[in-house]
């Protein structure tokens, strides 16, 4: 019975140590989280300050430029499609247009 009591004491310490380790683990995570947030806040503030001076915004301007170029290319593609349509219709109606002009130019009564 004495042996059981003795073991009980050691086991109790083991649990206390585990709880202590758990507290350390959580504290460490809180510390890392705080550092992470601090770093994010500092970076954000610094980036904003630099942006106000027009520094460090090249990536944003570049991104906008790329997007705008894509949009411009899309517009040109659409116009090229309309050009092909115009060429097709012009070919179909060519003779009618030529006849119209010839009738006007040549006075044949």
């Amino acid at each position: 019975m004495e042996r059981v009591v003795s073991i009980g004491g050691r086991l109790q310490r083991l649990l206390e140590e585990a709880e202590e380790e758990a507290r350390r683990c959580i504290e460490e995570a809180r510390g890392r989280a705080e550092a992470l947030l601090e770093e994010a806040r500092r970076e954000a503030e610094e980036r904003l300050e630099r942006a106000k001076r027009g520094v460090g915004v090249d990536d944003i301007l570049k991104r906008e430029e790329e997007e705008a170029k894509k949009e411009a290319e899309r517009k040109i593609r659409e116009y090229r499609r309309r050009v092909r349509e115009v060429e097709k219709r012009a070919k179909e109606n060519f003779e009618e247009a030529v006849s119209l002009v010839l009738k006007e130019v040549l006075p044949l009564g």
Partner: protein
Amino acid sequence: MAEEALELEARLIERVVERREAILKEAEEEAERILREAEEEARRIREEAEREILNLLSSDLKALRDRIIGAGELEGRRLLMEAREKAVSTVFQEVERRMREIAEGRDESVDYDAVLSHLILEGVEAIGGGDIIIQANERDLERIRRMLKEVRREAERRVEEVNLKLDGKPIEAMGGVILRSVDGSKIYYNTLEGRLARVRRRLEGRVAEVLGVI
């Protein structure tokens, strides 16, 4: 008795080990949750900063975007306009080619003598009669000489007094005539090129419509 004690001891150890593992696992999960939330918050802070920067740059970005897309729009319109102009020009080029064939007598479907006669009589009516000199290219002068008698008769029918003469010096033209009063006060240009140019000014829009390009 000793056996019972050993069994009791084993159960106790087992329970404590389980409890210890549970405590550590819970702690690890809690730590992971804390870090996950912090990362999420950090991302939110960065995104918020990016939004503020975008807001700050909004006018610059708009100007950049407008400039690039505007250039694309302009280029597209230019292409379309060129295609329309080319389509219309092709019609007038074809008309000119066919007129040249007609004037050179290579198109038998058109009576070019009749065309010349119309061109002369139109000029006579516009000038209103009197002594009128007719100019034409060498080929058309020949044709007009052959049919002048008939043209004179028709001209006299249309205006009271008219006297048509040919200027023997040929002009540079695809075809058609230039008529002028003897004193030079009235000139009527009725060359084929002239007529085509006038028709083109007047009919370009209509031709574009017929072609279906506007």
